[in-house]
Every structure is written in structure tokens, then in C-alpha cells.
């Protein structure tokens, strides 16, 4: 069984799922809140990264305000034997932020998904063309966001 977060881990992750304070020593503040030293916190964070509980500590942007106004989901039909190579190709493109294989079902013949982001519509279209040329999909759909009903970060703990 993989390691699961214990009570102290959860307290730390609770702090990190939100916002680190923008101060000179942000980790010291978090350490004080959970009652450990900064050294211990930094050691634990290294372990979390190794265990992959944390993908990274980093900044997260509002796409739109950062200039990426065109966000489109692509659904692609790729035969099974070419799927792995196609996924790797799509993932290599900088304007593709997410790429997954998901199951088909009756009426839904698409099996690879990409999230694509561009500062202009032309940039997204360019990425679509790169994918079309690169992986030769049997069919595909472009599904732009028409309305955002909810967009938030998960509160895990």
C-alpha cells in the first residue's frame, strides 16, 4: 500500500492547498501554523514531492487574465495501436496543457482528450492543425467552453 497522509501531513497539506503567504519566509509561517520547525516542514515537503503527494509547489494563474482567452477541449479518435504515440505527440505541444486517454462508449467514438490554450483563436487553430497533421485522427471534435458554471481549486482537507 502506498503511504497515505497522517494527521500532521493533512494539516500541512491543508495549508498548502490554499495560498502561501507572499512574505520573505512563507514556509516559516506555515510551519508555525502547524506547530513544527521550518526545517522539519521543508524536509517533509521534500518527502511529499518524492511520494508524489505534491506534484510541485508553484504559482497557478487565472488563464483568461494571463492572456489565454481561448481554451478548447479536443476529443480525438485514434486507433488503439497508434494511441500511445499520438498521446505522446500531443503532450509534446506547448499549448496542450492536459492530455488523457478516456474510454469510448456507444455514440462517443473519441478516446484521446486534449486541453488547448491560446492567446488568440489562431494559436489554438494552429495547435489543432499540428495535431491533425501529426496524428491523423479518424475523427475529432473541438469543444470550446461556452459557459463556466464553476471553476475552483479542490479543498482536499
Amino acid at each position, binding site marked *: 500500500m502506498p503511504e*497515505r*497522509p497522517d494527521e500532521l501531513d493533512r494539516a500541512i*497539506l491543508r495549508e*498548502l*492547498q*490554499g*495560498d*502561501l503567504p*507572499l512574505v*520573505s*519566509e*512563507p*514556509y516559516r509561517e506555515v510551519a508555525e501554523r502547524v506547530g513544527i520547525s521550518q526545517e522539519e516542514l521543508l524536509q517533509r*515537503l521534500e518527502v511529499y*514531492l518524492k511520494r508524489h*503527494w*505534491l*506534484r*510541485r*509547489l*508553484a*504559482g*497557478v*494563474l*487565472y*488563464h483568461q*487574465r*494571463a*492572456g*489565454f482567452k481561448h481554451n478548447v*477541449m479536443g476529443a480525438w479518435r485514434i486507433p488503439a495501436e497508434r494511441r*500511445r504515440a499520438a498521446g*505522446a505527440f*500531443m*503532450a509534446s505541444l*506547448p499549448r*496542450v*496543457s*492536459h*492530455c*488523457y*486517454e*478516456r*474510454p469510448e462508449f456507444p455514440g*462517443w467514438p473519441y478516446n484521446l482528450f486534449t486541453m488547448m*490554450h491560446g*492567446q488568440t483563436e489562431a494559436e489554438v487553430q494552429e495547435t489543432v492543425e499540428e495535431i491533425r497533421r501529426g496524428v491523423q485522427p479518424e475523427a475529432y471534435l473541438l*469543444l470550446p*467552453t*461556452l*459557459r*463556466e*458554471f*464553476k*471553476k*475552483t*481549486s*479542490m*479543498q*482536499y482537507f
Partner: protein
Amino acid sequence: MDELDRRLLTELQRGLPLDSHPFRVLGYDLGLGEEEVIARLRSLKEQKVLRRVGGIISTKDIGFTSALVAARVPPERLEEVAAVVSEYPGVTHNYQRPGELNLWFTLIARPEENLETLVDEIARRTGAELHLMPTLQTFKIGVQLDLTGGADDA
């Protein structure tokens, strides 16, 4: 946003150093002092360009499960169904998209919850046809947008 802001944000998306003074380290390569980095990030947050600085938690590695769910909703009921879906704390993204499957949301289940049970409950409450689309293979995960060398100052 100026060019330094863009470089700073591009760098910060890649990672915040594990160091007692992470913003000082972050500033080294950009030739910015700690205080200026902090001041710029505070301003970018006020401008709602920077959402947050923190941990990016790996859902499945801490024992949670997640999937994409696509729903077929009669257009006249879209808002009502979307509101029910958005009530769930495990729904983090909930978007209208074109086509017959017109509502798409991401759903995260806690270790003590079951994804299928949650989806069944949402289907029962909304009467919508739902399709659970779990991840079979991940090729890329992570939103790291390169802001440098882009368009004019916004």
C-alpha cells in the same frame, strides 16, 4: 504586466524552490531582489492574474479518485442541472460545451467516497444522462503556460 512579470510567472508556474527564502531564489535568475519579487507577485494577485501560490496536490496519490463526467441535458434545463452539479464540493470545473453532451464537469471523490455512487446520485437528482469518463492513461497533466515572447502588454 511587463516582460519581467511574464518571466516571473512563467518561472513560478514551474516551481517555487524549497528554501527558507524561496522568493529570493526565484528572483536570482531574473535579476530581481526578494522584495521586488514579492511586490510584483502581490500586485499580480490583486490584478487577478495570479490565482495562488501553493501546493499542487496529486489527487490520486493521496488516495482520492477523479473522473471527467459528460452530461446530456435538455437545453432548457441546463442552468438548473448545472446548479445541482456545482453544489458538490468535489466538482471543481463545470462547463457548458457545444454538442449533445453539453455539460462537462470534473468530479473528485474522497477516499471514503465512491465515484460511481456520486455520479449515480447526481444522475438521480438531475434526471440527466451522465457518462463517467475515467482516465485510462495520462500523457500530460499540468498547466504551465509560457507567457514570455507573447503578445503586447495587456
